[in-house]
C-alpha cells in the first residue's frame, strides 16, 4: 500500500498550504510589497526557479504566459528563505512595516 512514499514535487498530499493559511492571522500592508524581484529577466533565465517550490507558503508563482514570477507577499510568513535561497540573489527582502505581516497566536 505504501510501496513507495517518494513522489514528484508537484504531488499533492494532505492539506494544501493555501488552506492552512486561513488559520494564520495577517495584517496586510496594502501600500507596498516588502518582497521585490529586482530583475525579472534573471527569473526567465533561471532553470529551476526554486523559489516556486521551496517557499513554505508558495508566495512565488511562475506565470509562463507573461514570463514573470508573481509575488503573493500578503501571505508571506517572513521566514527569509527566499532571500537566501534565490540562486542569483534576486529578491530584495525587507521586514514588513512595523505591526504588519503575520501575527502568530501560538508560535
Amino acid at each position, binding site marked *: 500500500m505504501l510501496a513507495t512514499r517518494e513522489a514528484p514535487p508537484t*504531488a499533492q498530499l494532505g492539506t494544501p498550504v493555501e488552506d492552512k493559511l486561513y*488559520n494564520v492571522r495577517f495584517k496586510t500592508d496594502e501600500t507596498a510589497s516588502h518582497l521585490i524581484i529586482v530583475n525579472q529577466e534573471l527569473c526567465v533565465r533561471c532553470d529551476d526557479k526554486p523559489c516556486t517550490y521551496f517557499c513554505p507558503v508558495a508566495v512565488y508563482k511562475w506565470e509562463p504566459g507573461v514570463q514573470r514570477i508573481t509575488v503573493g507577499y500578503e501571505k508571506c510568513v517572513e521566514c527569509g528563505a527566499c532571500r537566501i535561497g534565490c540562486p542569483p540573489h534576486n529578491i530584495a527582502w525587507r521586514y514588513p512595516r512595523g505591526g504588519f505581516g503575520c*501575527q502568530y497566536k501560538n*508560535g
Partner: protein
Amino acid sequence: MVAEKFDVVVVGAGLAGTAAAYTLAKAGVKTLLVERGDYPGSKNVMGGVIYRQPLEKILPGWWREAPIERPVAEESIWILTEDSAVKVGYRSERFAEEPYNAFTVLRAKFDKWFADKAVEAGAVLVTETVVEDVLRHNGQIVGVRTNRPDGDIAAHVVIAADGVNSLLSQKVGLHGELPPDRVALAVKEIIQLGTQKIDERFTLENGEGATIELFGDATLGMLGYGFIYTNKDTLSVGLGVLLSQLIARKVTPNYLLERFKAHPMVRRLLADGEQKEYMAHLIPEGGWPQIPPLYAPGYLVVGDAAGMVNGAFREGSNYAAISGKLAALTAIEALERGDFGRAMMARYVERLQESFIADDLAGYSRLSRFAHQNPHLLTAYPRLLCDAAHALLTVDGTPKRLKFAEIVRKALRQRPPLALARDVAGALRARP
C-alpha cells in the same frame, strides 16, 4: 516617537533581546526594547522546548508563573524508514517532578509574558516598530534608525537581537548573507487534540509532557529531523531541513510536512486532530568553527542573530537567553566606565568563552561539518538499523547464529568495512 535618550536599545523582543532588556532594567539602566510585531512573540517560532536551568540565572523561579505548556518527562528519538521505526527513549519520574528539567512552550504566549517582566523591571517596550539601520558617529554605533517618522533613537549601546534574519549586522558590516547550507528551514503546525487524547496516546498523566524527534524517512533522509511535542491540549508537529538540501530535492516544505504527518508511525498520534496554525521559520545552523564577529564599538549581537543554535541537541533558546544576559552585563560595565570602544565590547566575547555557549557551539560545528560531509548518514543507517531489528525479531525458523551473520553480511553490503570504519571514526571525532 520616544523623545528621551536611552542608555541601551535592544532590537527584537525574543528570548535573547528580552533577557538583555530585563537584566539591564533590573540594574537600573535606561533601556528601550524595540519589537517589529504587534506584540512580543507574534513573529517568533521554535519547536517548543525550553530548559529550566539557564533561565533561572536570569529570572529565578520563572517557570512557576510563566505560561508553560507541559514539563517534559519523556524524550524519544525515532529512526524511521518508510514503514518501520527503531525507537530509543528516556523517561524519568525525576523529570516529572519539580523543579523539572525542560518544558514545552508556545512562543507567542511565552515571549509576551517574558517581555511583560522586562517592562515591570523598568524597560520601555515599543512594538510595531522596525529598526532599519544603526546610527553611526566617528566609527561608533550611537543608536538606531526606525521606520517611524522622527524615528532616530540615540543610545550608548545597541544590542542586536533581531533573529536569524539579522539584517542589522549586515548593515553594520559584521557579515554578509548566510549561504543556504548554513540555515535550516523549519515548518510547524499546531494540532488541537485535547488533553485527554494527548495523555492517552503519549501515556502521560498529571500534566507531564513528551517529546519525539524523528530522523531518516521523516525528512526523506535530508539533514534535519521531524518533531512532535506535547502542549497542554495541542501538539507542535513539524520538521526542519537544511535549506540547500531542500532546494536540491525540489520538494515543497508543505509536501514534506504532510508526508511526515501521513507516516504510519506518526498519523496514529495525530488522528482526528484539528489544524490550528501553520508557520515557518529559519534556524541558523552550523555552530561556531570559530567565534564569528559579534561586536563593533557600541554594538553587540545575541541569540539567533549570532548563530547560537545547536541543532543536534535542539538547543538555542537557552543560548539566546544567556547571551542576552552576558551582553547586558557587558553594556552595564561599559556604562559604568563610560567606555563603548572595541576593547570594552570584546568583553562580551570573553564572557561567552567563559560560559558553556562557546564550548557547545564549537563542538556542534564539528558534528555539523561531519553530517554535511556525509549525507548518507540519515539514509543508509536508518535502513540498516530497521532491517537489522526486523531480521532479528522475525521468527522464521532460521537459527539466531545465522541471523546475526546475515545481518552483518547485509550491513557490510550497504556500508563496506572501510566505509563503516570511516563513519565510526568520523562520528567519534565529531562528538560534542
